[in-house]
């Protein structure tokens, strides 16, 4: 995709993740998932789409359009909500893996 896109691609791959929501103890109920953006590492903060939380809202999706509602606290969702986040290799552990694969000593040809 050319040099113009190199940095954007790297940034996107570093920040991209997938988020899945499921019900504790009810694997058969299925799960909901979407994409997300990693905002910060250690601590890990992720921003993702709110749509996968609708099935877990105690007051139902109506809570999202209640007058004046622009944010809802975490306890607006049921206790059985389980969340998982998954992402690709980070720049750091790619380097560490590269380190591992390079032996400490080498015999450069003169």
């Amino acid at each position, binding site marked *: 995709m050319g040099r113009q896109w190199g940095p954007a691609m790297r940034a996107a791959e570093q920040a991209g993740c997938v988020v899945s929501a499921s019900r504790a103890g009810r694997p058969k109920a299925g799960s909901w998932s979407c994409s997300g953006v990693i905002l910060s590492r250690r601590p890990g*903060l992720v921003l993702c789409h709110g749509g996968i939380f609708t099935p877990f809202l105690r007051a139902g999706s109506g809570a999202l359009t209640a007058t004046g509602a622009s944010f809802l606290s975490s306890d607006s969702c049921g206790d059985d909500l389980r969340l998982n986040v998954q992402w690709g290799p980070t720049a750091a552990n790619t380097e560490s893996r590269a380190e591992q694969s390079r032996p400490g000593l080498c015999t450069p040809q003169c």
Partner: protein
Amino acid sequence: AGPEPGRYAPPRGRPMQPPRSAELLLLLSCPAFRAHFARLFGGEAAEQWRFASVAPDDEVSEEEEEEDQLRALGWFALLRVRPSPEEEVEERGPVVAVTPLGALPKGAPLLACGSPFGAFCPDIFLNTLSRGVLSNSAGPLLLTDARCLPGTEGGGVFAARPAGVLVALVAAPLCWKAREWVGLTLLCAAAPVLCAARAALCHLHPGAAALADLLPHEMGAPWGLPLRDPGPPWAAAAVLVECGTVWGSGVAVAPRVVVTCRHVAPREAAKVLVRSTTPKSAIIWGHVVFATQETSPYDIALLSLEEDLDGVPIPVPAEHFHEGEAVSVVGFGVFGQACGPSVTSGILSAVVQVDDTPVMLQTTCAVHGGSSGGPLFSTCSGDLLGIVASNTRDNNTGATYPHLNFSIPITVLQPALQRYSRTGDLGGLRQLDHAAEPVRVVWRLQRPLAEAPRSKL
């Protein structure tokens, strides 16, 4: 072929991190986004619009699910990932920089990054990339023609310039208007969402100021550079044309002369209203000085205005066409007067010629009803390539294909336009009513006869 038995080679060569459990900190929405959404897609228009969103749970009826999805559109969630022992090798601190709202102009290249079908098959689909441009904006509600699929909701959209900054999140990957796929993805600008997240976090968790401070802040403009990139000058060349109850797009070819399509302004001498939105909005009256006959293959009309279109750039007409070159269409399709013109990008997919003369251009840009009469540009040079005349409809199924569309090459019009600008003479334009039969055959999308049928006498 494939990896040796027993050795696992990740399909995209990058081992994924194991899933990490996380906790929900809060759900938040951007009130300004929802207000613009209601204005553009609500009210009378609501019936026409459909948005695809996350995969439904089997237990929910389709109608119920669609209502849930619409309510959740424009809502985002802030999560905290639980630490894990491997964390010491991970970097610390913000992962992204965020561009301020409004810093990117229409037509700016964008890169969307999401995982189609979410966690269904991350080995294959994690962080799939899609490229496009910023097609339109209304406050924090942005549109891009980068193709996104269900499951990419919440994915990041990044700018090429400044490189790799977060611009927006995917709010709804697919939009349908009147059961026709529009080919645009609905985005919510990231800066206002993060601003709302910071405020909500501090409101809900008084001790969370340090956490709130970890959320990325907007990038300042590098010293001395203007905060807002003016963007490609050609993006300001399209005007909105209204003739009676019909409206479409047009492009200024001289300060008081606009070209549009005949089906937008069919009757000579009829009054028209032309609106320009950038660099500043102006409303100017004019009239139709020329419109081709219904029988002409060239669906063209010429408007003469009562005032200059101040500040609207007059594009340079192209002389050559290069199949495969990057092109852009600017037009008022999809939103008409409710929003400024949209920019969509693609390539010049075909130049159809008769006797070595270009008579039709095809592109892969998304073109919608209302874009007719608008300009087709070479993205690199900004030269005017043609006038958008139509997209494609399958008469059998009724389906419309925005990404296959037809424009009239500006080289067909240029000699006649110059003659009119110089002398006011419409003679050259009248010739468009007498185009040769092979040209008519092309514009009727019929197969040209290999040779004229031979008489049996």
